[in-house]
Structure formats: structure tokens, C-alpha cells
């Protein structure tokens, strides 16, 4: 499975994007987000970017006011996931140009579309930025 969820939260702990690759009920999601956001936000810059939580790990990275959190299985390569987060940010950056929290908020569906191109069934399937963005750009043109 690899990736179990991708979460974007701001530094107040408010969810800005949530994508789960296994089904959780609303309550489960709320509980999980609360727990891990509390855990990750309490950490300092000098600590690892990884947090073990229950039977999986959370790899997180902070960009200005936004935290990107990715929940992965225990045997996943944490450094690679850390770079995957950065790739996602670079991709968003290329599309929005200097991406910020509000861009994602106003274009939530587009942020989701990018993620959909990059991750399927919990696996990283596409890392070529052009391939990720082409469908979204084409869609913008036609609509």
C-alpha cells in the first residue's frame, strides 16, 4: 500500500486538504487528524521529520504556514516520502506560481487533481511534473 493518507494542515492545525487511500469514517478521520497534527506540530526543527504513530509512520514537512503530512506504512522509505512532499510542492508551485495556503484553498479541487495524478492506490505513480500538470492545464483551457 505504501501511502495511507496525505494531509495538509496549517500551523493552527486546521485541515486544508485531506486525501485518504484507505477508507476511514468521518469520526476516525477527525480523531486521526487531531492526534497526529498535535504530535507533529509540537516538534521542533531539529527533530526528525518522522513520527511513529500507532502502526504507521507520519512523514511531515513544513512550508511557511503549511504542514504537509504523509502517513506511510512502516517499511516505507521515509526520506523518499520527504522528497515526494517536496515534489508535490514544486508541482503546485509550477502551476499556481509561488503557491500559498490560499491558492490551495481557492482551488482545492485542482490540488486534489494533482495528487490524483501522482498517487494511485497508495503508490507513487507519476513524478514527471509535465505529465502531472498536462491534464489539469487542458481542462482549464476547455472550460
Amino acid at each position, binding site marked *: 500500500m505504501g501511502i495511507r493518507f496525505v494531509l495538509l494542515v496549517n500551523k493552527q492545525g486546521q485541515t486544508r486538504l485531506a486525501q485518504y487511500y484507505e477508507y476511514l469514517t468521518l469520526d476516525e478521520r477527525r480523531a486521526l487528524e487531531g492526534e497526529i497534527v498535535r504530535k507533529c506540530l509540537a516538534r521542533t526543527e531539529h527533530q526528525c521529520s518522522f513520527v511513529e504513530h500507532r502502526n504507521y509512520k507520519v512523514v511531515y514537512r513544513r512550508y511557511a504556514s503549511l504542514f504537509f503530512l504523509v502517513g506511510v506504512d512502516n517499511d516505507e522509505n521515509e526520506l523518499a516520502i520527504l522528497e515526494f512532499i517536496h515534489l508535490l510542492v514544486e508541482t503546485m508551485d509550477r502551476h499556481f506560481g509561488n503557491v500559498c495556503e490560499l491558492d490551495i484553498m481557492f482551488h482545492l*479541487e485542482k490540488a486534489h*487533481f494533482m495528487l490524483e495524478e501522482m498517487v494511485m492506490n497508495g503508490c507513487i*505513480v507519476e513524478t514527471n511534473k509535465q505529465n502531472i500538470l498536462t491534464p489539469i492545464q487542458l481542462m482549464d483551457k476547455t472550460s
Partner: protein
Amino acid sequence: MGSQGGWGQSKEFLDLVKSIGEARSKAEEDRIVLSEIETLKRRIAEPDVPRRRMKEYIIRLVYVEMLGHDASFGYIHAVKMTHDDSLSLKRTGYLAVTLFLNEDHDLIILIVNTIQKDLRSDNYLVVCAALTAVCRLINEETIPAVLPQIVELLGHPKEAIRKKAVMALHRFYQRAPGSVSHLISNFRKRLCDNDPGVMGATLCPLFDLITADPSSYKDLVMSFVSILKQVAEKRLPKSYDYHQMPAPFIQIKLLKILALLGSGDKQASEQMYTILSDIFRKGESTSNIGNAILYQCICCVSSIYPNTKSLEAAADATSKFLKSDNHNLRYMGIDALGRLIKINPEIAEEHQLAVIDCLEDPDDTLKRKTFELLYKMTKSTNVEVIVDRMIDYMININDHHYKTEIASRCVELAEQYAPSNHWFIQTMNKVFEHAGDLVNVRVAHNLMRLIAEGFGEDDEGADSQLRSSAVESYLRILGEPKLPSVFLQVICWVLGEYGTMDGKCSASYIIGKLCDVAEAHANDDTVKAYATTAIMKIFAYEIAAGRKVEMLPECQALIDELSASHSTDLQQRAYELQALMGLDVHAVESVMPLDASCEDIEVDRSLPFLSSFVQQSLEKGARPYISESEQSGMSHVNIFRSQDLHEVSGHTLRFEAYQLPKPAPPASAPIAFAPPTDLVPVSDPTYARDIQPPPKVPSSLDALSADVGVRLRLEGVQKKWGKPTYSSSAASSSSSTSQKTVNGATHLDGVGSMSAQARDNLYDSRRQQVEVSAEKQKLAASLFGASSSKNEKKPSSHKTIKGSAGNVEKPTTMVKAVTSSEPTEKTSVPPPPDLLDLGEPAPETKPSVDPFQQLEGLLGPAPVQSTPDSSVVAGPREPDLMALYSDIPMTNLSGTSTNPTATNFYAVSKNPQGATNVSTLKKGPNPQDSLEKDALARQVGVTPSGKNPNLFRDLFG
């Protein structure tokens, strides 16, 4: 930033996003969302909402759910939107649906049709959107509806479609492997796709397939190696580069696959060495992504057949990680080290200091990872240091999940490597004290058993020393507030058995302590039961020793309180205790012999004493007993049929639902329902027994003790149906208590929570593990057996500095000590204790297969086989069963002494027989046979598994 509002979004939407963004607290955010829900409910239901506007509503619904509120009122509109012709709307609809619904939601069926249509679309973006939705929404039942179209799309000229089609098949494989088993060859084909994206995606399903069955894909090793080589040599288009690293995510996936394929396969591994050392050589350790690839290489090297050169490269890379200042890299380094020491424990030596640094780092993540490494490195020479460290850490954390894990690891390591019994007991005490509620009950029973059995050698002196040190420590610990229930049970049991043994403490002192325990834990019936029985034992020993015991007032008060308890179990114990006080020395001696907890109880399972009763009943017209095999044979036919039906017709309605529940356990029922009139003749002996406390059973077989044997068994069985509280009742009879209790508990687990099949699987997997371990041990012994001698240390030296690194501080020595013939893999051998409750004390001679055969016997299919098994296994026989049973209705009727066993039994027996129970007396099955069967069932409860003996054998060498 300039994007707000520039995309045709309405003011309402902009305001919503702004207000959510500006919310300063969760409460404020909730308020905004709740009012938004109200607005949306109104708006979304309006007629003729413009489509663009509707898209906005749907996105607002996504916000509502994302922020933790229910948006189910709008699901249907999201579903409708998937039908839209506009791509952007359609895709938004699909997105919302995948976010809202799980694949088993009722609305999914409305989308399947749309998906089918979209898969045929000329617009490749529409097809892509549909394929993305397929990956999220198609469940096992709907797979056939889209499968042919998806297979067709595998050959689509557009690479984006091929890629997504591959992933759709991957999803089907994850969801229902059988549904695509005939399409596996497509994955192999797509591996050679011209497009690197399709090839990269194909690695995902292949990885899963190879994980499940590496041997079928050995022919692909060469292909994977050459792909990896091409990627590493930058043959892919530049657009796949990430920070100047060629397609790193594809490289990592390939390395993962190679690790699987090369594991334990010398031939396959040899094909990989070149490319691995190439990657190490080119390795770029200044960027994260470069290190990520290096780490994956280390994982691969440590997984495949070992090769000196690549191991060296891996060790170098690892030491770079460990020496880094970057916490992330050190974390990866610790993990990598844990992998490498499996192959060469000496690697750890040069990193002792780095490991200790990580262990003492304030970062919890790093600390935990280091504990994981230590856990892998533990062996008999360093177990004390490591476990002490772990316990110190365990005491200071609050995270229950992790506390449980580390506690069970402490127990596991202590059981496996304990240098002395004394240390083992002290360690267990600490674990219980601080995490008693989190560890498995089995551990408590093991501890009791260890104290009872001592060293297993004929060294009585050491044994009694062990016991008195245990008693001493428990008397001290009792002063602490808030001890976990399980720990208190152990303490009570030990005090009852051995409290007065060495003569240091007077009986009344111990009794006083036990009364305190019972008083302080008024809400814990189990602890109270343990305490009461312990008091009874102390009294019995005193009486047997000819000493006069005075009744302490608090003890009398306890007895009075318990006699009126709501718990019938506690009541019985109280009455038994009182009755015991009135018996003479001889009776007490046979009822409660001194220190007989390890004696076997023999039971005559043919139950000859019942013959006369059976005969009598038959003469009165009772129906002869139908043998168990006949009964259960019938019920099993049903079950097999219904199972078949399920497998065959996964898609149809299951009419069998109500027939499925487990076959009735061998019906012990009928006799219990005997109306009083019939029982009168037999019940006479019962009265006598009624006032007698449960006697301790000597191995000799007098009727009295046999009765108790029977009672014990019954408890084991009862727990299967009864409330958990009854587990305590086993403690009421002192001898072999722990064993019985455990068995009872296991029994409960086995029947109650696990199907026989699941258990079989569990068992199989365990056996596999054991086999592997033996192999690994051998490998490890031959690999680093030579180095073991230099670091060998006498286990007796507690916490002294070990090994040659004398100048380094204490903990480093454990790193040092790794190099012994005890391979680290060994730690992984014992399965997690929680899963395998089978671990009750077990005579070592027993064939480990038994529990399952017996369980089967209990459930029906092969009772005949299991009978001989169990008789071989657990020698005990129970001659005086009938007396016990006859006592049941009597006590119920008379109400004098409510025998918990009996009452519970009564309740239980209703289950299988239902309404007919009253009449069963006359025409019911032959009581003798059914009792026999019951005895068999009880045997199952008693049957041990073969796990712990090993642990203890390890303990004692």
C-alpha cells in the same frame, strides 16, 4: 496570490473560504461550517441550479467533510455531477464522490454506468477521469462490469490511459486477487512499455505480486536490473529527473523489488551486485533524494544473498548516515544498522557511540528507533542493560500503543534471555508495576508458573530461595498504591502458596496483608477471589501443620462480606473457606496439600462411576445418548455446505446467514436439566461436598479430589460462555491453579473470538516462523560463530561493564556484545504474545499439534481423533463427574450454597438445547457419553501449546 476570484468563483464561495481561513479557533470554524451546511441544504435543493454554481456547491461540500462534518445530504448531487458533459464538472463530481463514499456505499451502483460510458469516451481526459474513479470506487462485485474495458485500455495509444489502466488492474488485484489472476501477464507486458511513466506505474502491481510470490518472477531479475541500470545511467527523459537525480522514485521501487527477488537466492543476487555497487559508487550523499536511494540500496543489500563488497559499501553509507548531524539521516542510519547487523553483527561495533547518542537524544522518534535496534541486538550477555533501559523508558511514556509494545518486548526479551530467575522476577515485577494492565495475562501465568516450578532441577534450596525472595519483594510492593489487577493476582497467588513457607512471616501477617488487598480493591472481583483463596491456603497449611490459627477480625469481616457478595464465585470461596476451618487435619491435608501446584491431576475419562446412574436413567425411560461424532458430524455437513455456498455465490444473497454460527460445542447440556426428583438419589454425596472447600488434588485418586479436578475443568470450559469474571474461580483451588486459569482463558479465546480455521492459520504461520528461525540460527552461527567467544560474558554479572570496551560508558557495551552466536533474528522468533494466547504453561513433551486437533474436536469434525490425543496429552481423568453435576440443580433449588460452576453451567447448557431442556431429563441423551464429551471439551482447555516450554528451556539452559 492573485488567483482569488479570478476563476469565476462566486462571492459567496470566496467569502466562505476567507472566513474559514481567518477562523482563529476550532469552535469558530465549526460555527462557520454549521451555518454553511444550512445554506447548502437550502441552495442545493433549489430547482435549476446552474451547473457551474453546482460545481461550487460540491466543492463547498468537500470543505464541509474535510473539516469534519457530515455532508451526506449532498452526496447524491455529487453523484449526479459525474454525469455532466463538461470535463471539469465531471471530474469534480468524480473527485467529490471518491472523497465522500467508500466502495461499498449504496450510491456507487449509480456511478458504475457512468464509468462504463466514460471509459468508452473519445476524449482521453474523460477516460482518465473515469479510470481514476475506478481505482477508488469499484468494489469486488462491480469489477466484472468494467474489467473487459480496462483490459482493452491497456493497449490504448495514449500513455496516460495505459498507465491508469495498469493501476486500475492493480487496484482490482489489491481488492480481489482472484479477479485478475488471469491477467497477470499484462503487467509483465507493460513493464516493457515505451513510456517510462507506464513502466514506472507497472512496478507497483509487480511489487505486490512479487511480495506475495517471489519465486514466480525470478525470470524478471535481469529485466529489473537492466531497467535500473538504464535509469541510473540517465537514459530516461530529463523530465523524470528530480534534483538532478534520474527518476529516483522509480529507482527506489526497483531496489525494493530486487530486495524481494534476491532474498535468499544466490543466483538472482549475483546479477544485482554490479548495479548495486555502481549506485553506491555514484551515490550522492549531499541531497535527501540521493540519500533516499542509498538507504534503499542498503536495504536491498541486507536483504539479498550477502556479498562482501556491497556489504562494505552499505556499511560505509550507513556510517555516513550515523555520523551526520541531520536527525533524519541518523534515523535512517539506525534503521540501516538494524538491517545490516542481521548479516554482520560486528558492524555495530564501530557505531557504539553514535547509537548511544541516538538513544539519549531528546527526540522521541530517534529514541524509539534506537530501542528497536537494541531489541534486535539483544542476547543473553546484554539483556540486562537493554531491558533495564527499556523499562526506564517505558515508565516515562504515556502513549498506550507504544507502551504496550515496549512492555511486551521487555517480557519477550526477559523470557528469552534472562540470566537468572531472580532477575527475571524482578524485571517482571517492574513491567507489571508500570504496565500491568497492558501486558498479556499469559505473562502473569508464566510468572506464577516459574515461581512454582523453580529451576526445574532438583535444587530445592535455590527454589525456595527464589520463592522467598519473590514473597519478600511482593510484600514490599504491596505498599505501593495503584497496582494493576493482573499483578495483584500474581502477588496474591504467590503469597498464598509460599507466603509462610520460609517461616519469616507469620500466617496472620500474610493473611492481614491479603485482607488489605481484598479490601483495597473492592471493585475487582478477580483480585478478591485470588486473595480469598490465598487466605484459604494459608489457613490450610497452618491447620495441616497442627498450629492453631486465630481468625483475624478483618478476615472474618471479609468472609462475612463475601458470603453476601453478588458474585456467586466470591460467595462460594467464602463458604469454602469457612468450611475448611472446621475440618480436621487429615481432611485439610488431602484437600489442600502443601505446595502441590505442580502436581498433575489425574482424571478417569471413562467415567465408570456414572454407569449406575446411566443405567438407572435408561430404565426410567431416558433417551440413550447420541454419540458426539454423530451429532457433530451432522452439524458439520451443514456448515460445509453453507461455506461452499458462500464461496460459490459471492454475489448472491446469503440465505445461510443464520445457520452459520459455530457448531454447538459438544453439548454438555442435558444432564444439567435433570429435574430434582431424578437427582435425589445421586445428590447425597453432593451435600457433603458442598460444605467442603475445593480440595487440593493430590495425584492419587480419591473421590474427593477427583471431584475438584472436575470442577477445575469445568471452569475452564465455562469461561467460554460465561462472563470473564469466572476466570477467577479457577483460583479457588490452589493446586495447579495457574495452569487451569490460563487454560480457561485460552479456551475462551479460541472458541469465542477466533474461528478454528483462523487459529489454524495462526498456528501455521507460527510454525513457519519457528522453522525459519532454526535455519537462520544455523546460518548465523556459521556466519559469526567465531567472534562470539571474545565478547562472551558470564551472565551472572549484573550490569557490570562488559566486553572489551571497558572505557566506554555502560550502555555501549551492549553494542559491543552483539557478536555472539545468538543471532539477532532470534528475537523475532517468538510470535507476539498478544496474538498467541496459546502460550500457557505446557509440559514440554506435548506434541504441539494437539491444541488444534482438539479444538477441532471441540467444534465437531473430528472428535474421535481428538479423543485419544487429549487423553495422551493431558493425563488427568475425572471419575467423579456425576457427583458434581448432580449437585447442580440441588444447590440451585436449595439455594444454600450457590455453586458458581453449577449455576453457570446451567445457563450455558441452555444454549445448545434450547427449549427442550426441561424434558431432557427423561429422554435426554445418555449422560455418561455427554459427560465424556464434556470432559473432552475440558481437556481442550487444559491442553497446552508447545511455546513456552521453549522459553523456559532457554531460561534454564
